[in-house]
């Protein structure tokens, strides 16, 4: 159901600082809003995002309800070796989404 868009350069040179962009489809319901029937809408957010590069963690975030719906993130890492980047989002109501992207480093 949930879908993610990931933008990672396909190739890079050793030592290059690459920019990674991710966008994930999620309502990020704050838990502070009132629904049409006057009831409080329960919180439903992504709590953590972790990016690993060939198994080593390179970037981690903790989200709060103050992150906009469909969280967008852009961050950097240094290209060190050819391999796989793994992106993992976890949140309320057992939300779990794992995506991967490959990079060739020359």
């Amino acid at each position, binding site marked *: 159901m949930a879908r993610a868009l990931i933008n990672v350069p396909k190739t890079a040179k050793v030592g290059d*600082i690459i920019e990674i962009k991710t966008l994930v489809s999620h309502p990020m319901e*704050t838990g*502070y*809003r*009132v629904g049409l029937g006057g009831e409080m809408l329960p919180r439903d957010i992504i709590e953590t995002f972790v990016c690993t*590069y060939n198994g*080593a963690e*390179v*970037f*981690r*975030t*903790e*989200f*709060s*309800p*103050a*992150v*906009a*719906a469909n*969280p*967008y*993130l*852009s*961050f*950097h*890492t*240094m290209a*060190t070796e050819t391999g796989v980047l793994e992106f993992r989002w976890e949140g309320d109501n057992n939300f779990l989404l794992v995506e991967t992207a490959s990079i060739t480093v020359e």
Partner: protein
Amino acid sequence: MKQSETSLTRRAALTGAAASGAGLLVLRSSEPASATPEAMRAVLRTITGDAPVRKGRVQLDLPPLVENGNTVPMTVTVDSPMTARDHVTAIHVLNERNPQPYIVTVHLDHRAGKASFSTRIKLGDTQRVIGVAKMSDGSFWIGEQEVIVTIAACLETF
């Protein structure tokens, strides 16, 4: 002739009323209202502990005037060489007028190469957003940005 005169004065009166209304709105949103600025300071203390916090090195790029508080683009950049000996280990972004003081926290190390990230946030009111960076030597640096919000996020709660 007479009619157009009256409509002119009516228009003038309406414009005046609208202007004063806008003035009132700005006044209302800039006066200290809730305890949330204190909550933000409390969170800041739990992050930094007793370590000194210095101003600078953290730059928050947020639009100064936001029309829609539901999606506010934000870029945080920390001035750091990002070497194994001297790098940023964490960046916390906090607010003082949302229902709760946290926005986002990122953890990184020298492998990032560049201490900068972008995301989109929600802002419930005109307020100050602060960024706190923790360096590998244990020091803390702080940067802030004032944002004017015309349509707040989660309006139902305000």
